[in-house]
């Protein structure tokens, strides 16, 4: 029975991890329609930043900048030629992700590296260790920051304007190129932050990104294009589902169950939980 009750906070903490890795995608995929397969490698870059800096708290802003800068370069050098062609961005960024993985292997070596967890994160409350609580707090902070950015800053509102109607936004004097750059910077930077958090619970190696990328996209798909509240609900839902499915069956079956539930869910809500209404005929 305790085990059963324990699964609730565990599910939420799994959800927090999912949310963190997917948060950046709600920007790049959701807001800009870019399927960034290199998102996983930006997470990896964040984790390696933590490894180089060696201090978790200092690493958070640093990883945001490092991964964000990588995103910025990617956007300027390649992705910007592909707006409106999400499938092409998917393939392009997959190529980028391959190169980044091999680069990490050459720079840091193939074996995993160790990022020491700060001593103040040792211990925990009940079933949840402090490091899990830290990740949950980070996820909440990330959501709040993103919400404030989108709704309370001029830049954020411009971003939203561009998402809803690119052409209209451009004619209203918004420099859409700059908005795109900034959006990609923030989205990639958030991946870096997620990478720092993941050093607390998982391996830090060249393959890090590949472990999270599919799950991250599933969160965005289930949550609905570019919808913050959708992503939050989807992450929490998938986290809980994962937690209880694994509790009652096993980890392998849980993954299959999650996939089946998402397909079933899309039968009811084909565009995810929340969609922007648009009358544009494709």
């Amino acid at each position, binding site marked *: 029975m*305790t*085990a059963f009750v*324990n*699964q609730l906070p*565990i599910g939420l*903490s*799994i959800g927090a*991890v999912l949310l963190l890795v997917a948060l950046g995608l709600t920007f790049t995929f959701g807001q800009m329609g870019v399927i960034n397969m290199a998102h996983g490698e930006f997470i990896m870059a964040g984790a390696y930043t933590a490894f180089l800096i060696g201090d978790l708290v200092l690493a958070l802003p640093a990883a945001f900048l490092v991964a964000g800068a990588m995103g910025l370069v990617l956007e300027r050098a390649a992705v910007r030629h592909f707006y409106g062609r999400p499938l092409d961005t998917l393939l392009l960024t997959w190529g980028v992700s391959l190169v980044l993985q091999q680069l990490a*292997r050459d720079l840091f070596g*193939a*074996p*995993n*590296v*160790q*990022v*020491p*967890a700060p001593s103040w*994160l*040792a*211990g*925990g409350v009940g*079933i949840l*260790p*402090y*490091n*899990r609580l830290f990740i949950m707090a980070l996820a909440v902070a990330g959501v709040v920051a993103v919400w404030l950015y989108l709704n309370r800053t001029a830049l954020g509102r411009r971003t939203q304007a561009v998402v809803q109607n690119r052409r209209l936004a451009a004619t209203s004097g918004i420099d859409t190129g700059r908005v795109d750059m900034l959006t990609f910077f923030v989205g990639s930077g958030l991946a870096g932050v997620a990478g720092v958090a993941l050093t*607390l*619970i*998982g*391996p*830090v*190696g060249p*393959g890090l990104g*590949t*472990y*999270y990328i599919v799950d991250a996209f599933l969160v965005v798909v289930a949550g609905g294009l570019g919808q913050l509240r959708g992503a939050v609900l989807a992450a929490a839902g998938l986290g809980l589902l*994962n*937690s209880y499915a*694994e*509790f009652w069956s*096993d*980890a*392998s079956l849980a*993954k299959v169950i999650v996939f089946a539930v998402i397909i079933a869910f899309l039968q009811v809500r084909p565009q995810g939980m929340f969609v922007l209404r648009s009358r544009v005929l494709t």
Partner: protein
Amino acid sequence: MRISRPIVPVALALALAACGSDAQPAAEAQEIKVGLLHSLSGTMAISEVTVRDAELLAIDEINRAGGVLGKKLVPVAEDGASDWPTFAEKATKLIRQDKVATVFGGWTSASRKAMLPVFERYKALLWYPVQYEGLESSPYIFYTGATTNQQIIPGLDYLKEQGKKKVFLVGSDYVFPRTANKIIKAYAAANGMEVLGEEYTPLGHTEYSTLVNKVVQARPDAVFNTLNGDSNVAFFKQLKSAGVTAETMPVLSVSVAEEEVTGIGVDNIAGHPVAWNYYQTTETPANEAFVKAYKAKYGATKVTSDPMEAGYNAVYLWAEAVKKAGTTEVEAVKKAAPGISLDRPEGKVTIDGENQHLYKTARIGIIQPDGLIKQVWDSGEPIKPDPYLKAYPWAAGLAAS
């Protein structure tokens, strides 16, 4: 469509030209080519490259001592790319195109299973250097790592001696853990131990909070861990932050060696036991030389581990068999090999004539705060390899044949 039509013949001509263009120069009479087939790229590269390095070291040493039958060994390295069909493909290439005398290679069971038919088909030799799940003895493979009765069963004997009666089984979802756990359950039934749970996670899984919760709630005396690769990092990190310590609940691992410890983080795993046949700290004269030579060649920060040592041994054992046979011809080498006994870094190893595995000494070690492993138990003498566990009555019926 009009655009594309001329490209097809161009393409095929190119492909044909390319396919046919790599004729090999005739092998020098003074050289013996040997194949090294490990994953140099992909997920398994992390482990397999070190084994290849150890094999190269052995080849170097043998060459410096005058080679084999007066000829130098020339390594031909191929990349298995962590992809099982690629192993089969490259094995075929090494045998048919490069005409190597023997091949040292593989790590995962899947890669060995993929190569096995190739070696049997062309009657060529493979030396496989990693502990595995047993239940196999191909006439064209020599197994220089442990089979189950040289690692799993000694591990269980150790737990029993320590008074750990209730165990929880955690493994990656593939052949080795599933087979190992079947053996463990049969052993437990025969030895008054209780298996409280058996959980598998997909390869590469990193979310262990649910599993840790299950383990903690079951309150076992010990955990028998057959997780593979990166999953170990996530598992040990999350286990530690759940407050589990080696004192309260030791986790005996059979796939964590010296190289993995850094990635997991010494803090997270120090104090937990592992089961192997060799540690960097194993005290033999041969090991002192091996560790010294390895560090001299590849860097002082490098560590040596059991599969590396098994790969290193494989080269020496083959060379010894060739010397004894007076030829590199496969059937003659196979005939000469049984009974060959060498003092290796792990102590004395002897090739078993019946199943082409090695007699090996089992060792349990505890992971130290410096990342090395200290031996706390050994089987005293080399254990006769028994891949089908025929000598263990309780294991009857585990495998039908």
